[in-house]
């Protein structure tokens, strides 16, 4: 069987898997950004009651394995009465895990904004929320975009684990094809290439573009 025959026979399934991977990627990204923002801001609070939950969250999700977290969310939470759809469990686990890493990027990005900006915002009597949202965060965002590019590639690769709870993503389809045809090199080789193309030709250029746009908005370019 030539590789072209392989693609003709199994291409559609791999494409379906790719679309599922893309859906997992997008949902997990949105969740990771939201969690990163909230946990990152909470970690900067002077109030211990606000800061401590964020610290615990970040420690747990950065300090343990994503696969174990995924199994916890899918297999263990139902024992406590919380049952999630496998699609939902998949992106929630990936998003929560990468969100913990993102929280540190948010915290670092905010802390990298010069003190003079805080003082100038305070001197205009902006409220704490407006100070953060209108003055500090836009500048922090520019500083943290490059590491976010890395993080999103990690996130993409992390989504392959959702195949282990039978979400029909790219990895899942590749495994299925391999199981029924034993064309391991073709199945996993194609998956490898698709992940690479996704990361290098879609995620990275998009982040580069975003960096340029943001740099222009801040007047640096």
């Amino acid at each position: 069987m030539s590789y072209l025959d392989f693609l003709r026979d199994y291409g559609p399934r791999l494409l379906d898997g790719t679309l599922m991977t893309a859906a997992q990627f997008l949902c997990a990204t949105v969740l990771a950004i939201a969690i990163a923002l909230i946990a990152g801001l909470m970690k900067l609070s002077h109030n211990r009651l606000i800061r401590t939950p964020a610290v615990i969250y970040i420690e747990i999700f950065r300090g343990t394995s994503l696969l174990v977290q995924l199994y916890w969310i899918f297999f263990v939470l139902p024992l406590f009465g919380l049952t999630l759809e496998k699609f939902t469990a998949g992106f929630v686990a990936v998003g929560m895990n990468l969100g913990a890493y993102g929280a540190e990027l948010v915290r670092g990005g905010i802390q990298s904004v010069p003190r003079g900006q805080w003082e100038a915002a305070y001197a205009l009597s902006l409220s704490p929320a407006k100070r953060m949202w209108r003055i500090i965060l836009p500048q922090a965002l520019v500083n943290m975009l490059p590491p976010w590019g890395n993080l999103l590639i990690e996130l993409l690769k992390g989504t392959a684990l959702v195949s282990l709870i039978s979400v029909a993503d790219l990895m899942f389809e590749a495994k299925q094809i391999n199981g029924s045809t034993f064309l391991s090199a073709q199945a996993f080789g194609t998956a490898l290439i698709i992940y690479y193309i996704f990361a290098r030709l879609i995620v990275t250029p998009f982040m580069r573009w975003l960096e340029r746009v943001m740099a222009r908005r801040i007047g640096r370019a």
Partner: protein
Amino acid sequence: MKDLHDLSHYPLKLEGPDRPMVSFRNVTKRYGDLVVLDGLNLDVAEGEMVSIIGPSGSGKTTVLRMLMLETIQGGVIYVDGQPLSHMDRGGMLVPATPRHLRAGREQIGMCFQHFNLFPHMTALGNCMEGPVQVLGMSKQAARERAEDLLEMVGMIDKRDEHPARLSGGQQQRVAIARALAMRPKVLLLDEVTSALDPEVIGEVTGVIKKLVEKYRLTIMMVTHQMGFAADISDRVCFFYDGRIEEQGAPADLFSNPQKERTQQFLSAVKSAD
């Protein structure tokens, strides 16, 4: 901390037509164990231009920072008669809440050595931010006010530029317009020419001169430029070791300083020039 609890001999507010615009009453500022200002008493009248000079570490910048950015450990600060560092709770002065401080500080504008313009906003955006977000003005009204001020500081042609594309002197002029857009009763200028190249200092001092001569704005200015301070100040305060060592009209203080430390400082500055 005991100073905070014995506030009964401070007035709840300052009244009368002659009341100072800014009043420091026995104000103490500490960072941990380090006493930066000790029992400072200083009144600034409405429309007065006060320059603050002194060696580094003398506490002169702290005077401005206490008004705008920091809390104090003793005494009371009043702005336009009302307590700023404290507030009236049933006839008693108690330390101000962050909200009270922020509200009181709406009456004060401040410009910084390193300008601190918001880099993601244009010159116009910088000047509209406070009026729109804090004063609740409409975008249209805020824009008109901002354009008037940018015109006044000679920056109207650069209104749509981001700070990164402006020179230091231009940025500082925008920063002055941004502070003025809040219509402050008092303007604080913290070494606003210290980070500028010599050839553009004149742009900024020219604007400040206009504020003093044309608008009679109440200004407190920390500066190293003795010539400029002598030129436009109503009064010059020489700070040394957290206290006002000597103060007076610039003609007196600069040409006939009474205290030895003032003489030493002025001759050291002169020989450096």
